[in-house]
């Protein structure tokens, strides 16, 4: 069981090593020669350029030095002047920030050259900048934005016939698809990336992209599909004598065979991988491959082989301070000794393991953070860290495309992720949870706004339908009828106009609402200015379920007064609404001609009272009409809800 876990973990690390993590030995030589050139240079422009190049070379070795040289460069050129060196400066600066995990600074740097205010260089043109911007967004987990940016970049790469750039952009799209779990599309994009890169003769990344296709196949448990692809990469690497590419691809292939439980093949490829790493002097690769191989040996019961393999590794790893691997190796040695029945040695390594854990754990981590200067950022959406380092690999692919090698970074990430995973797992889970909550609150907000917008739109549609029909009629009475209907729809619509405005989600200020309603009616029926409306409405915020029936009642009663009460187009209407003994009391009074047959009206015949009586019923109220001097309608109801503020 522990082997399963170990295998899984090592698989994770191993796949991560797929990263084109090539530590160029000739790096230090290049740095020295650049330094000399810089000293010798006299022209400002040359000094600036050389400084930037130095900064670039330092980025896998020491971020501090890198940043120092960037700063140094600014004393030789004007950052506000649009020149090629400015482009080079900001572009490379952005890259360094990206590597060191300072994503926002990276974005800021790119902003300086992202508009149209930049001069392109031989290597850096607009789509390259877009590409890098997309990179930042991918790191930040903003996949939609990154996609958009990449979509912008694609046609630019195409028109510039930059196949290599196209490949890199497709690759990034593949990453996005992968992260958002659209694995089939990820494969499509990675394949496109591979094809473009081949066309552009950008062969090393091309095979990196091919490996990515293979990895996604593996993620989909289509390990059989992954195998020929890895083999192709291995063949390519053999051909070009790219030892490290071959080592990585072999290792990955071995892991895949492991998943398929074909231990012979697994052992073959991983030991080949180990051989190659050792040959190329790739320390960490060697350590990783040994661990992986030991796991397989373990599974096959080859305990002595484990010990023979790991003992020298253990010493080496100790000198290199790879405490993470130290632990793994110690663990494995301990288990192997135990299986051979060599309990003293088993105990020895268990104790060592304990020591490593205690003493060096924290110190190592801080050290590792300072040394590698790379922060590992979790997916904003998921806290599954096992499968995620492909993004780093892909980013590294792209940098390699520009012929720059990212040395220990990928490996550093591997180590770190392990350490950080242990320590920060909880914290990140919490953080991501709170982000998920935040996001769903935002979504809810947006949804609610959408709904209100649709409701308002639909009410307008109904109003429009009525309007269209009434315009096609000639009969006065018919037109009137439709106009009245339209007005009723309007009074309901007004409610929605005020809903969901900033603070009040379900409440309406009844005073404001009534003002709007009366204005609307006056406009609809073309009421003369000599008819005055006075209001005495208590300043309340009523629940929407109260306002809807109340609004319709007001609509009917007010319409009646406005249309029928005044013979000479002059008069006044009083409207009052107040709380009264636990009830809400509405009173509409006009000094017009009065109603002839009050009883008939109360029975719901005429003047829209059928509607009114049923609404009053719903509000659990009673209605009283006094028609002695003008018309006075009083309604008291108890089914209402006031919202406190």
């Amino acid at each position, binding site marked *: 069981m522990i082997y399963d876990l170990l295998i899984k973990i090592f698989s994770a690390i191993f796949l991560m090593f797929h990263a084109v993590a090539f530590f160029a030995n000739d790096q230090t030589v290049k740095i020295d020669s650049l330094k000399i050139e810089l000293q010798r240079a006299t022209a400002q422009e040359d000094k600036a350029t050389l400084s930037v190049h130095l900064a670039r070379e330092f980025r896998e070795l020491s971020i501090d030095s890198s940043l120092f040289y960037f700063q140094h460069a600014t004393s030789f050129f004007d950052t506000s002047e649009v020149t090629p060196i400015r482009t080079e400066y900001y572009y490379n600066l952005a890259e360094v920030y990206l590597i060191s995990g300072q994503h926002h600074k990276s974005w800021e740097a790119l902003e300086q050259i992202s508009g149209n205010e930049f001069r392109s260089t031989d290597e850096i043109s607009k789509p390259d900048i877009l590409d890098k911007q997309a990179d930042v967004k991918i790191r930040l987990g903003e996949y939609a934005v990154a996609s958009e940016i990449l979509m912008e970049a694609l046609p630019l790469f195409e028109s510039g016939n930059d196949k290599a750039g196209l490949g890199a952009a497709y690759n990034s799209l593949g990453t996005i698809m992968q992260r958002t779990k659209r694995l089939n599309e990820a494969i499509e994009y990675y394949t496109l990336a591979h094809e473009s890169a081949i066309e552009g003769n950008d062969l090393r990344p091309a095979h990196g992209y091919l490996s990515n296709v293979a990895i996604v196949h593996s993620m989909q448990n289509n390990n059989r599909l992954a195998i020929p692809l890895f083999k192709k990469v291995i063949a390519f690497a053999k051909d070009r004598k790219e030892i490290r590419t071959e080592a990585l691809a072999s290792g990955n292939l071995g892991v895949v065979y492991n998943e398929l439980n074909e231990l012979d093949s697994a052992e073959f490829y991983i030991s080949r991988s180990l051989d190659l790493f050792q040959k190329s002097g790739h320390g960490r690769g060697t350590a990783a491959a040994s661990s992986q191989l030991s796991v397989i040996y373990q599974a096959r019961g080859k305990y002595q082989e484990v010990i023979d393999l790991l003992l020298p590794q253990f010493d080496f790893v100790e000198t290199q301070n790879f405490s993470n691997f130290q632990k793994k190796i110690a663990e494995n040695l301990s288990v192997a000794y135990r299986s051979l029945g060599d309990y003293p040695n088993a105990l020895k390594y268990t104790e060592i393991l304990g020591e490593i854990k205690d003493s060096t754990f924290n110190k190592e981590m801080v050290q590792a953070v300072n040394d590698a200067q790379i922060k590992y950022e979790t997916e904003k959406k998921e806290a599954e860290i096992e499968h995620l380092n492909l993004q780093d690999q892909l980013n590294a692919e792209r940098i390699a495309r520009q012929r720059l090698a990212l040395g220990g970074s990928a490996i550093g990430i591997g180590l770190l992720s392990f350490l950080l995973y242990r320590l920060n797992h909880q914290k990140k889970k919490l953080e991501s949870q709170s982000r998920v909550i935040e996001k769903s609150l935002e979504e809810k907000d947006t949804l609610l*706004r959408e709904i209100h917008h649709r409701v308002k739109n639909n*009410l307008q549609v109904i*109003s*429009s339908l009525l309007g269209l029909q009434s315009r096609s009629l000639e009969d006065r009475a018919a037109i009137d009828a439709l106009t009245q209907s339209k007005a009723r729809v309007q009074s309901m619509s007004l409610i929605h106009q005020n809903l969901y*405005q900033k603070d009040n989600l379900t409440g309406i200020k009844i005073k404001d609402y009534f003002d709007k309603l009366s204005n609307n009616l006056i*406009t609809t029926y073309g009421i003369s200015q000599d008819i005055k409306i006075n209001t005495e409405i208590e300043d309340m915020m009523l629940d929407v379920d109260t306002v809807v029936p109340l609004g319709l009642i007001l609509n009917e009663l007010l319409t009646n007064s406005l249309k029928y009460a005044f013979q000479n187009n002059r008069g006044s209407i009083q409207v009052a609404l107040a709380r009264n003994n636990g009830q809400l009391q509405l009173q509409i009074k006009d000094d017009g001609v009065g109603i002839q047959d009050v009883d008939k009206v109360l029975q719901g015949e005429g003047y829209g009272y059928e509607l009114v009586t049923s609404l009053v019923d719903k509000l659990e109220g009673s209605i009283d009409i006094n028609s002695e001097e003008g018309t006075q309608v009083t309604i008291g109801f108890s089914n209402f809800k006031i919202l406190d503020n």
Partner: protein
Amino acid sequence: MKLDELNVLIVEDEAIIATDIKSLLRKHGCGIAGAAYSGSRAFDILASSNPNFVILDIYLGNGPSGIDVAEVIHDKYKIPYIFLTSFSDEETLTAAQEHGPYGYIVKPFQEQTLLTTISVAWNNYKKSKESHTWEFENSNFQLSNQEVKICRLLCDGLSYKQICAELHIAMNTLKFHVKNIYTKCDVSGRAELIPLFLNK
């Protein structure tokens, strides 16, 4: 109401509402350049049918929004337009002001309100096209020097972006001043400023 000079483009994604507006305008003698159900279609009609007035919804589904179209209308075609929309939240309202609309109506609207707004907008536009001078000094609104400068540019119809460039101020600063100006003059949009400061 003299609406027969108009050749209106209606941009509204709900077909029924667009038809309603068309029929309402035609009834009042107004010319119709066309109805567009999307931002892209709006661009087509702008280019091909010579409208001189636009009624513009803000939300237009996928693709360019009403505000995007507004920017083009303001910068490229320089014809007057009014917004017709169901969005009444502050954010949208503020964004809508940026490219100088001549009016703003909230859905659901009343026929009379729509007609009046169009008429007033058209008149304001015509006035602003005539040779005119602005008079800010004698007004009672107590505008500061900066506010007067901004007011002038608003009346001249510049978009917020253009005003920022002209006066070298930041967008937020501008919005802050604009808000104050509108409050002091008791208006809700720049189109209403025009009649206030016109020197006849």
